[in-house]
């Protein structure tokens, strides 16, 4: 039997297919402006017996493909727990949401916090800030790590932060240092969210933003704890959904 999980996020769609508990297929595409067409293309030629959808597009997928759904929170808890059996805390920062999840020893979510309507401190925020500084999203974290000076950025709202960044540039501050300041402000917000939920180890950082090595480094520094990052942090939701489709968890 082949079990699939699809995570339709605000920025990307991930698909994971399992056979006998092993990943046999892992795909990714941009969500674009028509995520259902993108999802359909991503699924082309993929065989599966059951599929579960997660992510903000799950209900649209449910209608179009007659699939079951779970929330990203459950999917991440299941996916991350399967890879890291001792995990107690998950930080997931995606394209438009950030979530702190506490899980028990059975890999079940027991408490969570999630940002409300505003996308402050999420992947979308980072993308816009990187763009303002003239970096690609991949360069953004790497360049921030090269900074030698701390600059305090106080705005978390994308609009305000953008004007704050512009005025810092006009003042002659270096892009690398502004980039570090932006990373620090996102980390402060994430740490506050984690502290309301759990900072019990093992802590796993997942979601697209976990690919940013500066974020990883700053989180470890702020929490003074070792933080694990999966090899493919963006696929944890799809992986968890696939495990759920197989009734494995």
């Amino acid at each position, binding site marked *: 039997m082949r079990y699939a999980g699809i995570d339709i996020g605000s920025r990307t769609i991930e698909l994971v297919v399992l056979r006998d508990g092993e990943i046999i297929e892992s795909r990714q595409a941009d969500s674009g402006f028509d995520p259902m067409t993108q999802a359909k293309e991503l699924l082309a030629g993929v065989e599966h017996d059951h599929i579960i959808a997660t992510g903000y597009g799950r209900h649209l997928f449910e209608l179009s493909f007659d699939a079951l759904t779970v*929330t990203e929170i*459950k999917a991440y808890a299941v996916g991350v727990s399967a890879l890291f059996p001792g995990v107690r805390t998950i930080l997931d920062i995606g394209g438009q*949401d950030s979530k702190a999840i506490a899980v028990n020893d059975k890999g079940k979510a027991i408490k*969570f916090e999630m*940002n409300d*309507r505003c996308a402050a401190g999420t992947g979308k925020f980072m993308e816009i800030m990187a763009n303002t500084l003239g970096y690609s999203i991949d360069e953004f974290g790497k360049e921030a790590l090269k900074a030698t000076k701390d600059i305090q950025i106080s705005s978390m709202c994308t609009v305000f932060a953008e004007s704050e960044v512009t005025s810092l540039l006009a003042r002659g501050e270096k892009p690398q240092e502004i980039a570090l300041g932006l990373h620090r402000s996102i980390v402060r917000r994430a740490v506050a969210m984690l502290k309301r939920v759990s900072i019990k180890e093992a802590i796993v950082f997942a979601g697209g933003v976990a690919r940013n090595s500066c974020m990883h480094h700053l989180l470890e520094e702020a929490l003074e704890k070792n933080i694990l990052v999966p090899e493919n942090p963006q696929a944890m939701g799809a992986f968890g959904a696939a495990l759920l489709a197989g009734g494995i968890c």
Partner: protein
Amino acid sequence: MSENYKDMWKNLGLKLVPHDALLEVLGKGYEDIYLTQNNRPESMAYFNFVMSEIHGLRIKELLDEKAAGRKVIGSFCVFVPEEIVRAADATLVGLCTGADFATEEVDKLLPRNTCSLIKSAFGFKLGKVCPYIESADMIVGENTCDGKKKSYEILKNLVPNLYVMDLPQMKSDEGKALLKAEYLRFKEAVEKLTGISIDVTRLKKGIDIVNNKRKAIHRLSDLRKADPSPISGLDALLANQVYFYDDPIRFTGSVNKICDELKKRIEKKEGVFPKGTPRILLSGCPMAVPNWKLPWIIETSGAVIVGEESCVGERGTRNLTDDSGNTVDELMEAIINRYFKVDCAIFTPNPDRLDHIVEMVEKYQANGVVHYGLQFCQPYLMESMPVEKALEEKNIPTLRIDTDYSMEDVGQLKTRVEAFVELLK
């Protein structure tokens, strides 16, 4: 129906075009949220009718009462003692709020960081679409939170008949003395308005009418203990909302009729959702018609609401008024005692509220609590974190929601509520 009431609305000074638009949105919302529910009790048909006539027949009734010399008093709060209003043959109605309206006009008068409930009340007045406020002979503003208290200074310029009632903030002897003084002053104001002197017989009758209304709601709440729940939380909320608008005697009869049907359902083990559906207690700010957003999200996410710890719910209807007194003084004292127990978050400290939440979780066998805080509502938002902490210490899962009347956060709310329901399973 609108054709028949056009003249009535025009005479009340309503703006017909936006009012038509409002009714259309309200009707559509009701259809989408209420009429799509499965297994509704048949006797909810009465409430469908009430909702379809909420700006029509009910207003005509109020105007007929006015023509017969009786008065209409509008209120925004459960602290306005209905017993006193009824004793003077007057009718107490809840004033419109619960949806964003005329927001640009409102923004000219109120700061942006004012809660939706206050903004909405102003929107309905400024947009001239609330027939209740236009029918009222007296509008009671009460000093609860700072937002409402200060906004009445502005509302005073918009309506000719605002009466401001002061309220205590502490459950002390001095607090109670203030409530007593204010209720006695209110009684005099109602007597002056109606020209009726409130005697023992009248006050007893007033208490009886309101107590019966409360008893019917208590009966309804009690039936919601059953699993499967015989009625949805949305429908029970609707009954609690209509409580503020409908003729009280007819309302009491209609709720009792629903209860008779629910009793039979329970005997047959019938419910609106399957047995074992996760049960939620909703706690926090009041939800006026048509603020159904959060209950709708909860009940379309695989859970059922089994109780409302809210002004539009048990905070408003808990406790009967003792009617055993033989003098006006004794009965007034009983009314004061009853209302002084209301555990509104404007009181400091307010430990009774937490006790009531825990009590309700046990009584209705709720699996978790969703705390509804209206954005910018300081008293309830301030209480939300200690409430969450205290409940979690008792192993009662709690989800704190901070939202308003807009629909822009529905997607994220749905994810949070669904995830909360998943962890209750």
